[in-house]
């Protein structure tokens, strides 16, 4: 076996040093009746070449770009990833290292994560960001729990236009805690209705997503003011990080905590994971943040260096009193995001984000021309909802056969939105491809 270096002579000599006769003898402390007598019932080993064939044939059955034209976002976005990012991300010094507990030997990871924290904070208009969480959904759940800790209140209000799967994760996290999750309904224009906030008391936080699940850009400023009037923290969530290359960031509109999904920033979709949970906040909440933080400091010679810091918030020190149980996070995904943000740059990210928006507007316009109804008239970024005729399911299936995925069917998530589809257009879709979609929808 190529990963097991021991020769039989070496095994024999090592067993002698240990003082047992054979490999079985190493397990003398495992009681007889705890031991497995049979072999594991697993498929026999494959050679590297057999594995290649096996995996290639399985992977070949998946519907992916470029063969398929996928006009679906809803929390996972197809964006171009520069070869340089994938290449750099493969460097084994990054890939095969552990959490940087020994800073002198991990300055690469540490500086890179410090830079990531900085770029994320700048993108979202916040002062600080954590080193990463699992995904956008768990980052939201942790943000809400953080608000409960800070305010010592027991209820949170969340918009019904936050990604429905994120809301389910939040509910899972909140179930055993006794804290209550209240939901804010949405208006006919595809925006969160926050008028009911005035009737809610004891709120630790108000959370919305922008652009929201229906693609609409929320009025964060106004919601933030309402939240603050209720002495609640204002949490702004997102699923499409690229939007903030063009849109006004949540920090400048009063958000106290910003959380969401960073997959758009150079991370492959990978059937939903690994992704990148982003969590940023104002500096005053620094000691309540869940998860790891990298900070700048100096070495004995006064040279700049980086360390994991404020570790006393974390489970390995504070145990049951920690701000979170998170240990392993999604560090390499954060690194990918940093590499991506560095590659695109300040000028580039705005141009790229605008291109996303403009392409989506083009498709919207063409669909309108073709007689389809755009469900909500609020401004959107790169996703929007279309109402198709009642028999559209047949068309949708026919399009699938032609390798076009015409958005996400919304009825399973919002039963009142039967015949409504959430469509997404990123920079990966050309005008020709959008024209083709529209013409196939027509017939």
């Amino acid at each position, binding site marked *: 076996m190529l990963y097991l270096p021991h020769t039989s002579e070496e095994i024999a000599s090592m067993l002698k040093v240990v003082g047992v006769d054979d490999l079985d003898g190493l397990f003398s402390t495992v009681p007889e009746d705890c031991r497995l007598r049979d072999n594991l019932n697993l498929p026999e080993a494959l050679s590297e070449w057999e594995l290649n064939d096996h995996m290639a044939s399985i992977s070949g059955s998946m519907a992916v770009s470029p063969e398929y034209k996928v006009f679906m976002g809803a929390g996972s976005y197809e964006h171009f990833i520069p070869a340089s990012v994938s290449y750099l991300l493969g460097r084994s010094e990054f890939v095969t290292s552990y959490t940087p507990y020994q800073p002198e030997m991990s300055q690469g990871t540490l500086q890179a994560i410090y830079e990531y924290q900085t770029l994320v904070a700048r993108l979202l208009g916040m002062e600080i960001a954590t080193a990463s969480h699992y995904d956008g959904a768990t980052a939201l759940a942790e943000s809400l729990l953080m608000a409960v800790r800070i305010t010592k209140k027991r209820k949170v209000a969340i918009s019904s236009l936050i990604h429905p799967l994120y809301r389910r994760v939040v509910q899972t996290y909140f179930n055993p805690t006794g804290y209550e999750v209240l939901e804010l309904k949405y208006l006919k224009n595809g925006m969160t209705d926050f008028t009911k906030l005035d009737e809610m008391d004891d709120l630790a936080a108000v959370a919305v997503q922008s652009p929201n699940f229906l693609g609409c850009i929320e009025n964060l400023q106004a919601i933030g003011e309402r939240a603050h009037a209720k002495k609640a923290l204002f949490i702004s969530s997102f699923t499409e990080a690229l939007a903030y290359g063009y849109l006004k960031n949540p920090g400048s509109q009063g958000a106290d905590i910003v959380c969401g999904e960073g997959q758009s920033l150079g991370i492959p979709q990978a059937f939903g994971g690994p992704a990148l949970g982003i969590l940023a906040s104002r500096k005053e909440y620094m000691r309540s943040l869940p998860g790891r933080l990298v900070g700048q400091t100096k070495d004995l010679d006064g040279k700049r260096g980086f360390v994991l810091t404020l570790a*006393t918030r974390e489970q390995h020190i504070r145990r049951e*009193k920690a701000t979170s149980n998170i240990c392993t996070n999604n560090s390499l995904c954060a690194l990918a995001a940093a590499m991506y943000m560095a590659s695109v740059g300040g000028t580039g990210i705005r141009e790229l984000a605008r291109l996303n928006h403009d392409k989506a507007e083009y498709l919207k316009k063409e669909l309108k021309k073709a007689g389809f109804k755009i469900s909500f008239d609020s401004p959107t970024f790169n996703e929007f909802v279309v109402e198709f005729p009642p028999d559209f399911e047949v068309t949708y299936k026919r399009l699938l056969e032609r390798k076009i995925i015409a958005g996400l069917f919304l009825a399973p998530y919002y039963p009142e939105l039967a015949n409504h589809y959430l469509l997404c257009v990123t920079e990966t879709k050309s005008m020709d491809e959008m024209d083709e979609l529209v013409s196939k929808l027509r017939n």
Partner: protein
Amino acid sequence: MKEISELNLPDDIRYAEDHEWARLEGDRIRVGLDDYAQDQLGDIVFVELPQIGDTFEKGKEFATVESVKAVVECYLPVGGEIIAVNTALEESPELVNKSPYNDGWFVDVNPSDPSEMDDLMTNAECLEKLKGAD
């Protein structure tokens, strides 16, 4: 870390089991963390203190002290109302290391029962206990 013989345990103050100290200053009692505790913790990076006006019974948690790799809760050696807190520790938590009995004090307490001081150890008793534990 210091040997027991190197510890500074002044004789004008009293010591609690968890290494808080208490010193009678007029009718108030000043409280802090002793030399042994600051030395064991190492570089102290953050001290979370209560607010003026908070009241605690003797033995209740009133502060937490963080070093780089440890956190300890501190228990009030004498019950009463907090009437002053050492705000200098916000900016300079290292004062607890540098001057545990003077500049690094934590809070002043208006004791509800000053005789609770008598339950605390003298420096000699504290030293004996440390020797025993070693």
